[in-house]
C-alpha cells in the first residue's frame, strides 16, 4: 500500500492518501447507484428498506448493496493482512446504535445519503443535516473527553 501511504505534516497518525483513495471508491459506488439505478446511496435508508421499515429501491437490490459492504471490507482486510479496529464496549454500542437508528430515520439520512450524495449536489436539507451531525459528533466527543469517559479499549 506504498502509493497511498502519504503523511500529513503535523498529523503523524493521519492517512490522507488512503483516506482519499477510500473516498474515491465511495464516490464511485454512489455514482454507480445514481447513474445505474437512479438512486441515492443512502445506507440508513437502504437498511430500513431491507428490514421492512421503509420504501425505495427494490428489496433484492437493497439486500445486495448491504451484503456488498462487508464483502468490500473483507477484500481490503485480506489485501492488507487485517485491519485495525478499536471498538467500544456493548453498553456504548447499544446507546450509539439506538441514537443512530432513531436519528437517521427522523433526519432522513446519514453520512452517505446526506454527507456524500446530498452535500455533493448542494442540497440545502443535506447541508443542514451534515452540519448538524458533524457539530453534534464533535461536541459529543469533546464532552465525553472532558468528563473522562473513555469508550474505546
Amino acid at each position, binding site marked *: 500500500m506504498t502509493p497511498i501511504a502519504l503523511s500529513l505534516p503535523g498529523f503523524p497518525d493521519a492517512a490522507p492518501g488512503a483516506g482519499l483513495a477510500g473516498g474515491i471508491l465511495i464516490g464511485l459506488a454512489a455514482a454507480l447507484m445514481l447513474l445505474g*439505478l437512479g438512486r441515492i446511496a443512502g445506507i440508513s435508508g437502504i437498511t430500513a428498506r431491507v428490514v421492512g421499515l421503509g420504501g425505495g429501491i427494490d428489496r433484492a437490490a437493497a439486500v445486495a448493496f448491504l451484503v456488498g459492504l462487508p464483502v468490500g471490507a473483507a477484500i481490503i482486510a485480506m489485501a492488507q493482512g487485517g485491519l485495525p479496529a478499536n471498538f467500544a464496549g456493548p453498553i456504548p454500542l447499544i446507546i450509539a446504535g439506538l441514537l443512530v437508528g432513531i436519528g437517521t430515520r427522523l433526519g432522513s439520512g446519514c453520512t452517505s445519503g446526506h454527507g456524500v450524495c446530498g452535500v455533493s449536489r448542494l442540497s440545502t436539507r443535506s447541508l443542514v443535516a451534515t452540519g448538524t*451531525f458533524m457539530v453534534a459528533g464533535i461536541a*459529543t466527543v469533546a464532552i465525553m473527553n472532558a468528563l473522562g469517559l473513555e469508550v474505546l479499549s
Partner: protein
Amino acid sequence: MTMRKVATSLVAGTLFGSGLALGGMTNPARVRGFLDLFGDWDPTLAFVMGGAVLVMAIAWRFQPRMIAPLFEDKFYIPTRKDLTTPLVFGSALFGIGWGVAGLCPGPGIAALVIEPVSALIFVASMIAGMGLVHLLKGEG
C-alpha cells in the same frame, strides 16, 4: 432487468465497503479521532469525505444529461427542500450516537466481518432504533 439491478447494487455495495475499509472508517478510533477536533485531531475522514464528494459532484453533472439511469426507467431523487425540526433534531441525535461509538450505518455494517460481535450489537441496536421511529410514527 432485476438481475442487472441486483448485480449493480452488489458491485456498488462492495466498492462502498472497500472504500470505507481503505479509508479507515471501519475503525471507530479513526472516526472518533476526526470528531476529536479540540483534542488529538485526525483529519483522515475529511479526505474520505472530500474524495467521495468530489467524485459524486462529477456524477451529478452527468445525471441531468441522461434521460434515464442505465438499469432503471427513471431517476428517484429527493425533491424536498423544507428545513424541518425532525431533520435537525434527528441529525443531532445521529451525530451524538456517531460520537459515542465512532460508528455510522455503513461502517457498522461493513465491520461485521472485522469485529463481528461488536458490529452486530451496534447494527441490531440501530435497527431497533429505526423500528422505534416506525412504531411511534404509527407506520407499523
